[in-house]
């Protein structure tokens, strides 16, 4: 069937609404994004399918990721009129018992994360709430009442975890492709662009450029225009784009279609990391399905509008996230950036006008058209409208993907949503913006997170990685880590970046090895400012940020490394050693058992000894001890 009108979409929605919300059988949805699979979801899925697969009134399905990675594998079970229950940490050994727990109505609280209330449809208000007659359970919290979820607001992640990513029909049932078809029917190019401009949407890939203005400029240049999606999510610690592609690939395709209709383009490209094989697979399935329904290809939806999407896989180069490097790579070249005196919206891919946005930006676009720019602009902060997805990782209790309105404070994100730092350790900093960003210390925790506020404290929004660091994280080592990364990823074209980063890294490595000298901090500052001013592309101009912000906020740690030759966090091996606090040690023998070098000796229930000559400082005893008896000196 080819979609030719809004009525065609309505028909699909009516047909699949029942299957999605009121299944005839008990439906078991297993979260099958990369995190879930890595935690064991695939084995659970196979086991459940073998045991039931349509028998005994149970149907087993896959969904994407609902974001709470810490509790993966997550399994949702529901049936018509019955409660929608999300079970947590359901590995292979528990899956059959879990299904039984639901069908027998036991609802073992220990296994349950919460119950889903209304999987808020995009068309809220336009179609009746599909979940009104669901029986809810007492004493089991709704997801939106759980701290991890209650400050979240989902736009880009609206369908993630609710639908089967391989089913275009389920996407359509949740209001998918309606924005695009409506735009084709009701709006001309200028109107679409105006709507995106009015929404205040800024690019979610890091730079924060106004999306509507980018579209307008691109549409203003003549030639074969290209729509490109940047799915080369290279920032270490950020995986929101992977999750969107794996859980809701059609939202990105629809966003690209709207961009193509607005700008006037017939060819799109998705440049996706080779490290994300599942995302590539789901994208291919999604593109084929969209072609089958006539939403990609020729005469789309019966209009004089053609658009195709080609997937291009990267081959592992961080710098290819930069627009000109990405386009060079798309052309089959080495991914080296060029100076941008002519912007890519004028001359980009194949020397033609090219519009590049990232995955999350495209995923926002359909919602803006459906709900209207005004409504969208009500969400978020002054200069940064809408929501942003962050990957909350590192030393934090509730790791996962969170989507929050812009302007929410770091404290809310780290402590309320994230649950704070585990094991009663002390919070030290939160790193945003990946290798181009900075480390934000405790004193700025009340900062509202948006593009402009983060810039003020020397960091950037970046693509949304948020890595929490605690007392055991050495800030000098973190700076060294990022420079090591950037040195490897620098394309080597321009001297300030190629040589400058290397020099800074040499100084930092010396400091971490105990060979720091007076004046090193000043030298790092001078080199950093030079690299910022003189580098060719964004990689170089932002490379010194992690060093400069750590010097600004954690100068005392640098000085301890240089003057006292001490690493108080216990990371830089030449600068610390472990000791056992004889007063705190209970003689539980756990550390002695796990020490790979046999460096810890002692009798049961008596304080243990650590033989310094044998110790390789692997940290296993430090992590193992429950009594804080292993201390960093």
């Amino acid at each position: 069937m080819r979609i030719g009108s809004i009525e065609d979409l309505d028909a699909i929605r009516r047909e699949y609404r029942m299957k999605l919300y009121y299944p005839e059988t008990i439906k078991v949805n297993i979260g099958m994004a990369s995190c879930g699979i890595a935690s064991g979801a695939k084995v659970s899925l196979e086991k459940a399918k073998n045991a039931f697969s349509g028998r005994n009134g149970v149907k087993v399905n896959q969904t994407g990721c609902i974001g709470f990675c810490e509790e993966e594998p997550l399994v949702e079970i529901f049936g018509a009129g019955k409660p929608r229950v999300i079970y947590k940490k359901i590995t292979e050994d528990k899956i059959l018992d879990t299904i039984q727990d639901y069908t027998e109505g036991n609802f073992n609280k220990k296994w349950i994360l919460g119950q889903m209330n209304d999987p808020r449809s995009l068309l809220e208000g336009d179609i009746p709430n599909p979940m009104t007659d669901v029986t809810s359970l007492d004493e089991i919290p709704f997801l939106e009442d759980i701290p991890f979820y209650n400050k979240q607001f989902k736009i880009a992640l609206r369908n993630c975890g609710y639908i089967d990513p391989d089913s275009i029909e389920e996407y359509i049932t949740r209001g998918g492709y309606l924005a695009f078809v409506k735009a084709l029917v009701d709006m001309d190019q200028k109107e679409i662009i105006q709507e995106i401009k009015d929404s205040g949407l800024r690019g979610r890939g890091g730079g924060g450029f106004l999306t509507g203005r980018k579209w307008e400029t691109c549409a203003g240049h003549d030639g074969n225009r290209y729509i490109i999606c940047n799915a080369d999510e290279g920032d270490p610690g950020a995986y929101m784009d992977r999750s969107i592609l794996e859980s809701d690939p059609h939202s990105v395709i629809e966003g690209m279609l709207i961009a193509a209709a607005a700008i006037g383009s017939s060819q799109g490209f998705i440049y996706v990391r080779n490290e994300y094989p599942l995302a590539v697979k789901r994208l291919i399935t999604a593109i084929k399905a969209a072609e089958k329904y006539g939403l990609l290809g020729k005469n789309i939806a019966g209009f004089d509008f053609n658009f195709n999407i080609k997937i291009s896989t990267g081959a592992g180069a961080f710098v290819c996230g930069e627009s000109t490097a990405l386009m060079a790579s798309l052309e089959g070249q080495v991914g080296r950036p060029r100076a941008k005196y002519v912007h890519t919206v004028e001359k980009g891919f194949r020397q033609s006008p090219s519009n590049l946005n990232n995955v999350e930006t495209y995923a926002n676009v359909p919602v803006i058209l459906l709900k209207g720019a005004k409504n969208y602009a009500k969400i978020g902060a002054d200069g940064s409208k809408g929501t942003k997805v962050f990957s909350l990782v590192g030393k934090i209790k509730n790791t996962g993907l969170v989507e929050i309105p812009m302007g929410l404070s770091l404290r809310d994100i780290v402590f309320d949503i994230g649950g704070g730092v585990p094991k009663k350790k002390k919070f030290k900093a939160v790193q945003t913006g990946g290798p181009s960003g900075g480390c934000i210390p405790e004193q700025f925790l009340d900062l509202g997170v948006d593009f402009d506020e983060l810039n003020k404290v020397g960091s950037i929004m970046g693509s949304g990685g948020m890595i929490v660091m605690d007392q055991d994280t050495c800030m000098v080592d973190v700076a060294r880590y990022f420079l090591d990364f950037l040195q490897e990823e620098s394309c080597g074209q321009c001297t300030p970046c190629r040589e400058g980063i290397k020099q800074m890294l040499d100084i930092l490595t010396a400091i971490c090895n105990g060979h720091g000298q007076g004046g090193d901090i000043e030298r790092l500052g001078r080199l950093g400012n030079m690299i910022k001013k003189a580098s060719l592309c964004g990689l170089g101009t932002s490379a010194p940020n992690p060093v400069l912000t750590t010097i600004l906020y954690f100068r005392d740690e640098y000085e301890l490394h240089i003057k006292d030759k001490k690493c108080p966090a216990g990371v830089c091996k030449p600068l610390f050693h472990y000791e056992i606090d004889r007063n705190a040690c209970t003689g539980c023998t756990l550390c002695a058992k796990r020490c790979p070098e046999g460096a810890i000796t002692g009798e049961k229930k008596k304080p243990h000894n650590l033989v310094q000559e044998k110790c390789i400082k692997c940290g296993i005893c430090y992590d193992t001890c429950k009594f804080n008896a292993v201390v960093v000196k």
Partner: protein
Amino acid sequence: MNAIDPSRPEQYADVEIDYMALDKIIEEDFYNNKENLIMIIQAIQRRYNYLPEPSLKYIAAKMGVPLSRIFGIATFYSTFSLEPRGRNIISICLGTACHVRGGERVRERIEGSLNIKDGETTDEQRFTLETVRCIGCCSLGPVVKINEDVHGHISSDQVEKIMDRYE
């Protein structure tokens, strides 16, 4: 990325290149289109587990692209290897989240245990060690990926046990 070591010619001597298969990759799968060069080279690496020199020379001649450009691509992007790799590829994630959770210690342990460094292969071709920057499983950090299996929450004393599972 390691360059070809001229002192060890045996490393690619025993690979037989199936030129019909290369033709299929170049012409049928990727339409002899120079823009698809990176994906063509990826397809060759999937087939041979590395990039045998004769295969690169062949695509250069077949597609009319200078060998220097192909060599440029093969050495610029980190997924490509000009040296044969082991039967099992260990990818240690050193993304930021894994780094702050002790990924570096896991790396030291694996390097020590196999007696190889990043990018190297063990003598009997059992393991190749690679470090990667973020595979997007940050919640499970520190993470080690062996072939297609992701092992999460790894501590350095578990690595040997896990490696034992791979022959």
